[in-house]
């Protein structure tokens, strides 16, 4: 396996540290990395987040959407 992201190699997350304890919903610049072009939350299988991190992340994104910091949908 050379460089690709096939089965067996874990993706590293370049935006979040491993020991993240809280993801702020006001941190739009960070959250922006985890939404797709259409505004959807990026799935765990493509960003390699742990379940815990993904939970915090999706909660933060949903909060940010509520207060118009992030779009529900785009395009």
């Amino acid at each position, binding site marked *: 396996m050379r460089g690709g992201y096939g089965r067996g190699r874990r993706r590293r997350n370049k935006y979040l540290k491993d020991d993240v304890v809280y993801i702020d919903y*006001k941190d739009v610049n960070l959250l922006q990395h985890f939404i797709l072009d259409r505004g959807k939350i990026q799935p765990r299988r493509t960003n390699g987040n742990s379940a815990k991190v993904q939970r915090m992340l999706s909660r933060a994104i949903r909060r940010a959407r*509520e207060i*118009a910091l992030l779009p*529900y949908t785009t395009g």
Partner: protein
Amino acid sequence: MPNLYETLLIVTPEADDEGVSAVIGDLRTTIESDGGTVLQARVWERRKLAYMVKGKTEGIYVIIHADGGTTLPAVLKDRMKLDESIIRSMVVRLSDQHEIDVRQEIAERDQAGDAAVIEEQRAAAERRHEAEAAAAAMSLDEIVAAEEAEAETADSDNGDLGDDGEAESSDSDNGDLGDDEGPTVETPPVDESADDVVGDSDESTADDEGKEG
């Protein structure tokens, strides 16, 4: 056991500084009347909204951190719904770990910001004094102008040019003062409108209850 609540709200982009501080002051009293304490209340930033809210594409984000009991979020939300200058709001209880960080951040900000806040209040007070002085000066000018006009009509044949010149200059002074005064004089009406909002909101709650009943 008090919780730390973070309130993020969007004030309509048309609101000026006074409008925003009126909103903050209103929420401050709401929190305090519910037995909570405001740790900080400040404008976060003016930014573009990710989607249109009540026809607005832009908004002034205000952030309030407050300690309070479990009734506080509901009370705050109810209050914010009644204020028409608030186009969107959210109250969130901060998790234990994050709570400590935020408290620390607020403490640091307080130390840094105290001087700035005091300065700001002083500037506002000065502006108010100036406005009052301008209002007083204008009324004086008006009296002088009226007297001059009377004098002119009395002896209109004498010294046309000189008198006219003076009268004109005094008129234009009045005009300038009037212009300067425009925004400052609006201060009391803004407050009044805030009071009106309170009155209206009370009525609307009454209406709501009526509908429910």
